[in-house]
């Protein structure tokens, strides 16, 4: 695991992890620079004092909801440093994407990098690990244990619900326009979930660091046995535009009725997003069967 840098001031928390975290050692003014981290904190019942792009978070991620009073610190890639400093955080939680900013951020407060999307391609595992560590760090060990246990139970329930589908490879995709799709490979968060619930991913070609790849629709044609799961949101008008004379309508999987849509979940997300995605699987697969 490539977890880095419990920087200055965090030694105390590392020590406090063994004994029960108590009182003032626990960082209470947290700024999170990435939505998946925000979601992790909120799932433990901890509200960050600052986070990026609250309005867009509400639209793209949605749950858990952001409590009122959380400050907006600007865009994810260029958080407003003056705004971050003004919040007087005692810990800044960053993603590996923020590395270029590290020198500036450490001038404001200690930082802790939260690696979920790494070359290892295990975001589900890392998100779970990180949540456990958050629990210890923030004195919310019990909550973390509960969230993880309940997610595991949910995954197990989904696993038994979709057992009959285990043999058939699944292609998980989302439409970018009428000609291009984003396909989620095994190293994506949702790819990890498919594996966790005993399903197999039908895409075994190259993917990027976040576990997906963008290809033309024609690349789907050779994958004849697959079941297609289309992640919402679908750009307006696209499926209606797919006439009987379109490639999509004539794909073996679509003609055989082996395609279904599945409600949106944030694909750069954390355990909450993974669980949300998993919860839609039985219905999506059942209605397609």
């Amino acid at each position, binding site marked *: 695991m490539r977890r880095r840098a419990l920087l200055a001031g965090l030694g105390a928390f590392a020590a406090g992890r063994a004994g029960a975290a108590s009182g003032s050692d626990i960082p209470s003014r947290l700024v999170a620079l990435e939505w998946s981290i925000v979601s992790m904190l909120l799932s433990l019942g901890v509200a960050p004092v600052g986070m990026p792009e609250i309005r*867009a978070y509400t639209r*793209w991620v949605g749950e858990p909801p952001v409590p009122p009073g959380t*400050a*907006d*610190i*600007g*865009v*994810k*890639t*260029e958080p*407003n*440093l*003056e*705004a971050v*400093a*003004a919040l007087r955080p005692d810990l800044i939680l960053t993603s*590996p*994407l923020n*590395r*270029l*900013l590290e*020198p*500036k951020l450490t*001038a404001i407060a200690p930082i802790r990098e939260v690696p979920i999307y790494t070359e290892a391609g295990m975001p589900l595992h890392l998100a779970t690990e990180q949540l456990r560590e958050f629990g210890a760090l923030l004195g919310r060990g019990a909550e973390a244990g509960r969230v993880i246990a309940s997610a595991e139970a949910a995954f197990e329930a989904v696993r038994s619900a979709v057992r009959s589908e285990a043999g058939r490879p699944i292609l998980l995709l989302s439409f*970018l*326009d*009428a*000609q*291009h799709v*984003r396909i989620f490979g095994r190293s994506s968060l949702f790819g990890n979930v498919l594996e966790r619930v005993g399903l197999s991913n039908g895409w075994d*070609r*190259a993917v*990027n*660091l*976040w576990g*997906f*790849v*963008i*290809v*033309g*629709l*024609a*690349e789907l*044609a*050779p994958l*004849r046995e697959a079941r297609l799961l289309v992640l919402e949101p679908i750009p*307006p*008008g696209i499926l209606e*535009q*797919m*006439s009987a*004379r*379109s*490639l*999509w309508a*004539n*794909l*073996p999987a679509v*003609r055989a009725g082996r395609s279904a849509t599945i409600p949106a979940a944030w694909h*750069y997300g954390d355990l909450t997003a993974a669980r949300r995605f998993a919860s839609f699987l039985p219905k999506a697969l059942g209605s397609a069967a």
Partner: protein
Amino acid sequence: MTSEAHRLSLAAILGGIALLALALAAWRLAVLMPPGRWWEAALHPNLDDPRDLVFAFSALPRLATAALCGAALGLGGALLQHALANPLASPTTLGVESGGQLALTIAVIFAPALAGDGRGLVALLGGGAALGAVFLCARASGLSSISVVLAGFVVALFCTSLSACLKLLNEEYATVLFLWGGGSLEQADWSVPEGLAWRLAAIGGLTLLALRPLSILTLADDSARALGAPVAATRLAALVLALLLTSIVVGAVGTIGFVGLAAPQIARLAGARLFVQRAPLSALVGAALLVAVDCGLALVLSGEDAVSVPTGAATALLGAPLLVWLLPRLRLAAAPTAPIPLAVRPGGRPVIILTFLAALLGLAVVIALAVGRDAGGMTLASLPELAAFAPWRVPRTLVAATAGAMLAVTGLLLQRMTGNPLASPEVLGIGAGVAFGIALGLTAFPTAGAAGLLLVGAAGAAGATAILIAFGARSRFQPEHILLAGIALTSLLDVFVLAFFARGDLRTAQLLGFISGSTYRAGWSEAWTGLAAAALLVPCALLLSRILDLLPLGDPTARALGLPLARTRLALTGLVAMLTAAGILLAGPLSFVGLMGPHLARFLGLRRAFGAVIGAALIGALVMVTADWIARIAIFPRQLPAGLVAALIGLPYLLRHLGRRAG
């Protein structure tokens, strides 16, 4: 038009291109399907065979789309070149495509309903606005070929940078927008080529019917008018037809660069001297070119790589060399190298003006450091607070100031070297070199730090400069050639940068931030770098000020006064390259400060080069510091790229200023 044209026969050129297109198309299809089954697979595809599916529903409609788009752009380019009597005119070089693309970007984000069926109309509005802006910009220089192309390039840059900013602030849409913008010809049914077919049949048919009336534009305006022809109305009609043709293509597949420039040129080269021949031939050549590029690309790239390099960008690989090859054949050398009359307010006293500018800059710096914004509203920092804010505000203000100064001095050098009021570092291609270097760096070393990125960016700048100098040496540093080579270089390098974007990688945001001119990442080391570079390079420009006074007098005068022209230009080019690289690395390539600084200096009456260099530097710094401050507070807590704010300030100014000078 040239002696080569006489030697190359029409049949050989056209036959060659058509054969190439047919051969590549046949090869491409043969890879997918044995030729014996083509007919059957096209009409009655076996739905259980994935090869038939791809052939019938993807490859064939894509081929048709390529042919239709190529034909439309070829015809559109021929119309533009004819109407403006400008061999460098095209939907790409006049900014029509970028304008349409910007309008579509705005529509996708703010009015998605319009982005469906209304795409063509949206592209038409944007393209028309861009063309209008180009005319306003170039009017001062009497719509000469080179001015129109430079103005088109500036407007295109502006549209592109505004699109980039919108993407930066709406990151979740970025991947979709890049796919759209790139001009991907990928198809998954026949709806796109069918839509294109009937629209193009209507507009193209109208054009072909109107060929004879349109061809009166070949005559000199006076003789045409003497024959009773409505010259202005005819020209307008030709422009509107070209706009319509381009918008249909942009609305359907996005930007397809350079086909509209290349096709009419090839038709002309093939000996089609009359417009009535050239227009239909351009359509045919355009179709053949785009089919050839698209099929060639599909043969080389597949899967995710094919998405990374969309056809509409790859055409620059064809168009940019063509532009460079065309340059010496365009008789630009015969274009007046005499100075364009520059508006100077008489009676300026340099010392007073410069003191005033310095005071203004000081005031701007104080405001930038002391005035900020928080969740509650605007704030004025007290002295102890100033110290707390210093680490955030001082480095970026310093970076903005020094970058602005260096870019403005670059612009002054370029404008004096070329006698062209639209010359600026933005068009030199060095910015694209830096972006290319950084894109390459982010791909090869994803975890590179700021210093590493700066290094690869500088390497890119050096590479672009070396190419530019090599090219400049061949054409004896003729100013127009260097500028057009810069445009060609920019288009070429942008293909690779775009390929990087299309990967849909989250790292694109980093590059976007740089490209749109963000001072966000500036720290103390960048600030000191900027100060050192400016302190070193700007005095070099001052040392050369005597030369800068002589150059605008025209080559013969300068030579008579004993100026070794070639060596002087080499030295100036080197200085320009270093200034641009430093300025762009610090503040991004799209500030337009290089255009504005020297203009304002001249407008204030700083005529002699020595005072003008200092004045331009002060103005450049002033504009960028102000832009950076606005960028910081305008949409708090989000921030705009300072370079873009400067561009937003600058373009309307330029339009007004250049337009008024014509009147």
